[in-house]
């Protein structure tokens, strides 16, 4: 195992975050905080609670998950796309590193940033909305698992993308709508039976539901199913990454 290589890639990626602190951390924290102010404190105070949880508190897990998903994808996809774009990928490809070590470095850094961001948003939310966490260890587990899974997904997008437009395509046109429609702002039980069934095809529902369960002990689908679905998505991403390195897809001629 080339530990030095993993550490080098990880540090390199983390140092990029610190160089772009405003863009990497401050900007998503402020934009998510605005949701807490508008939907949580301002509008939420005039709305009925859902499943015994105040509306402001109800949307906290969903909004954290929204940031977690989009940032995990952005961080990891940009991390591997940029060396491809500027040509420095030659160094990674010619180094004595395995696929696992490359992925561990890039995905590890992206997931670290996302988890840190999620925790900062969690603390910031507490300034605007009162909430509690019933299962803090499960909350952390979901946070880390989701960050790793979607960082892997982002890594795949970064390999696939051959221009900046494609890099933004999946997070903006697929992940964000799925997160909004996946129960960030409402319980899927509030939908008609037909749309409830349709919504169950949205994988983000399971992520948000499981994460919300760790906060309040209530969920749209069972926590076990949520965990299982997240693990399935993780395994799919791992399989795709394995295939990418085996075939050299968009990495090696």
């Amino acid at each position: 195992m080339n530990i030095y290589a993993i550490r080098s890639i990880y540090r390199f990626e983390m140092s990029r975050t610190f160089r772009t602190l405003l863009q990497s951390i401050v900007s998503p924290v402020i934009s998510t905080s605005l949701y807490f102010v508008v939907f949580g404190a301002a509008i939420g105070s005039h709305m009925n609670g859902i499943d015994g949880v105040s509306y402001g508190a109800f949307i906290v897990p969903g909004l954290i998950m929204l940031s977690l998903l989009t940032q995990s994808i952005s961080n990891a996809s940009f991390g591997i796309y940029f060396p491809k774009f500027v040509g420095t990928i030659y160094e990674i490809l010619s180094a004595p590193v395995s696929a696992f070590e490359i992925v561990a470095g890039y995905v590890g850094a992206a997931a670290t940033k996302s988890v840190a961001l999620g925790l900062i948003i969690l603390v910031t939310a507490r300034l605007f909305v009162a909430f509690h966490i019933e299962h803090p260890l499960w909350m952390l587990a979901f946070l880390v698992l989701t960050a790793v899974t979607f960082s892997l997904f982002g890594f795949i997008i970064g390999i696939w993308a051959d221009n900046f437009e494609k890099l933004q395509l999946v997070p903006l046109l697929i992940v964000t709508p799925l997160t909004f429609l996946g129960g960030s702002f409402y319980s899927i039980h509030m939908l008609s039976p037909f749309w409830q069934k349709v919504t169950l095809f949205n994988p983000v529902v399971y992520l948000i539901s499981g994460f919300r369960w760790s906060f309040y002990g209530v969920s749209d689908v069972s926590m076990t199913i949520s965990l299982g679905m997240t693990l399935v998505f993780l395994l799919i991403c791992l399989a795709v990454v394995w295939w990418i390195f085996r075939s050299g897809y968009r990495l090696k001629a």
Partner: protein
Amino acid sequence: MPAAPAPEGVAEVLVVVGAATYHRRSVRKRTAFPMLEGVRVQPIISIRQLSKTYASGFQALKPIDLTINRGEIFALLGPNGAGKTTLISIICGIVNPSSGSVLADGHDVVREYRAAREKIGLVPQELTTDAFETVWNTVSFSRGLFGKSANPAHVEKVLRDLALWNKKDNKIITLSGGMKRRVMIAKALSHEPRILFLDEPTAGVDVDLRRDMWVMVRALRATGVTVILTTHYIDEAEEMADRIGVINKGELILVEGKTALMEKLGRRQLTLQLQAPLVRIPEAMSGYPLELSADGLQLVYTYDAQGESTGIDVLLRRLAEAGIDFKDLKTSQSSLEDIFVSLVRERA
């Protein structure tokens, strides 16, 4: 019996076997290194039947066999698209081969990629750098990537050797093109490779920097590093290389010691400055390969320097008998560039 590997950092002067071998011809040759004249060296890169056909169907490399010796400077010459970069990219792991194998210091570059790549440093043709990183960070990053623990003293030495020390805290984006090229060399040297690939190292750099790089390459060779360079500048190969390979249309058409190549293929010419202009070459001299300049004042005689007799003495006597006087004479040898152009044209 193969020679035992010499310790790292020691220029291998092995008294036996391991001759520089050009497998295509199955001929064993002596090294052309002036400093190692009379002794044999050990192969460090062995390429067997290596070929590459891209998905588009374009065959970038036809099956190639080549051995590169430890401690030599090997220049790979060829026109654009000849396959130079493809060959280097396969050895370094950037491109997958279609067939064949490559051993780097005895390690298969595909099956034992870790051991092989640890020995190799690559300076690619394009100036591809992490624009927003500092010089120090990017060189340290490269060292770690190649599995080496942090060694600030070594990084400092590399930066000082390349005249980059006073730029170590500068972001790469602020450096000139020549400085960026040095940074790329520093990155390639950060993990103390035993084999260094320089793909067009002096493309687009000024004359001073080219000279500096030549000095640096020689200094690396002196420490036992094998240097393989591709270049368009024939004078660069002529100045630096111990051996030269010429590649054209994916085919390795020649591998030869530089000195031997120039002796074998280089033409020599004797140019006579005449006292009085000639209208034409006298009938009595028609049997000689002579050319008369347009103004009739220069007579050029082309001869084979390797032949039993150059014929110069006889020629000069015949000229004297014919009453043709000359006031000056000089001899010249065709340059590597002439040889290269003629080889590539021959195969076109």
